[in-house]
């Protein structure tokens, strides 16, 4: 089984070599002309002002958390959707009620965070 992946290894080695060769050659062979004004971070041509660091808004953490929860809910719905069609003649109502309860529980969660104002941006 390993022999099938030999071309992948060769491609990996070659691409790594290619990248290092290009960067290395341009670093070694190119001209070098350093003066202090070149090292300053770019800010549309004007001298930079203020600090690049500012307080990180906590709202991002909440949004990421909600995304994880509801994304996992969607992930669980995918296999259900795949097998639902096939199983409708056997036990269609049961499976539908099952997934309705699943979505219902998460709907309660959504109602909770909605009413508590966690979805307000500003």
């Amino acid at each position: 089984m390993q022999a099938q992946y030999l071309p992948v290894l060769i491609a990996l080695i070659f691409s790594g070599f290619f990248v290092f060769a290009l960067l290395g050659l341009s670093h070694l062979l190119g001209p070098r002309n350093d003066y202090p004004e070149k090292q300053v971070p770019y800010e549309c041509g004007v001298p930079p002002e203020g600090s690049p660091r500012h307080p990180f808004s906590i709202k991002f953490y909440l949004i990421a958390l909600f995304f994880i929860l509801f994304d996992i809910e969607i992930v669980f719905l995918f296999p259900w959707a795949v097998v639902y069609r096939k199983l409708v003649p056997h036990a269609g109502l049961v499976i539908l009620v099952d997934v309705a309860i699943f979505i219902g529980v998460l709907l309660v969660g959504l109602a909770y965070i909605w009413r508590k104002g966690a979805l307000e941006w500003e």
Partner: protein
Amino acid sequence: MNFLPTNFSAVVPELILVFALVAVLLVGLWQEEMKRFLGLGIALLGLAIAFIVVWFQPTAGEEFFSMITLDRFGRFFKIMVLIISASTAIFGFKSQEIPDNRSSEFFAILLALTLGLLLLSVSTNLTLIFLSIEMVTISSVILVGINREKREANEAALKFIAYSVVVSGILIFGFSLLYGMTHSLNIWKIHTALMSGASNQLGISAILLLLLVGFGFKIAMVPLHMWAPDVFQAAPTPVSAFLSTATLAAGFAILIRILFGVFAINQPDGTFVPLGSFDWSILLAGIAALTMTLGNLAAMRQEDAKRLLGYSTVAHVGFLLMGLVVMNKAGLAALLMYLVAFYFMNYGAFLIIGALADKTKSTQISSFRGLGLKSPFICCILVTFLFSLSGIPPFGGFLGKFELFRVMLHKGAHWLLVLAVVNCVISFFTTRGFCRRCF
């Protein structure tokens, strides 16, 4: 193909609690003023209906694709957890430590915690056991830190979850090794597979140690007891009371089920013999001795009432573990009886301290000074609970300890018995110091 577990009536109490939980949450969203009162009402209603259903539920055996087993052992713990949960709901309603704006969350998470404990009492499938333990852990951490403004509560919740995560990892490692060894997730099938003899003895010992660590954390067994004093001190008093009684009880339930259902052979005369070449009753005896001694000695020097009760809970776990050491059904019966007595005395002590903490805004023992003069009735009740905790006749604590000592005497483990009596004396001195400072 059957898509439905054949008997939904097996989990009706749990379903009732789910509905109560959702109802409390939704009511709390749309009803800001009456949140506390309505939350208490719905929670108590749900718990009462679940209690009635559990009381009259037939002990049918294995249900739900053999994931749970309805037997009288599980029913005992379910009833106990439901009663403790109802007491905590009332206690939390009255206590000032639960803030008003988060009261509906308190009741909802309390119901979720109860649900997890109910499932833990009856589950016999490794995945369901792990799921219940995680449900209990997460809900406990939220309840410990529900008073977000208090810095100590946040610190205790952080410590609690850090410990819990590591211990859950150890537990699931043990479960995965157990599954790999026996190719089954059902406890009874695992027992059959292990008894058939062709198993790796070192593997069984290693798995036993891992599971002991995993379950011992919940019951605050040495050397996994370190979370107990910090969490009990900083959590709101109703939450400490619940954690020290209900979670302890369900932790013992699952420990007994695993130890005596999987790792021991049931003899016809009511005794148990450890499975395999590793005699874990000796290990448990050593752990019981350590737990008792450490809990009682550390309790002697405490200045904070709730921290003292935390160490006293650890000491009582040592006494309770003695009931496991004797390896027969009489020992288990003594353990269960002491658990009930322990609920009454520990919960009572926490109730009084909670009421006093609300009045004096502090849980230091020095702030209880003069209690005998100001409100002698409350002081008498507190003294009653403390005497019961240290095992003075004729209170319930003495009866429970007497049962355990009698069982130990039968078995003949004299060194542990002597150590237990010494520990009783130490705890009596602690109680005497506490009471003296209250008067």
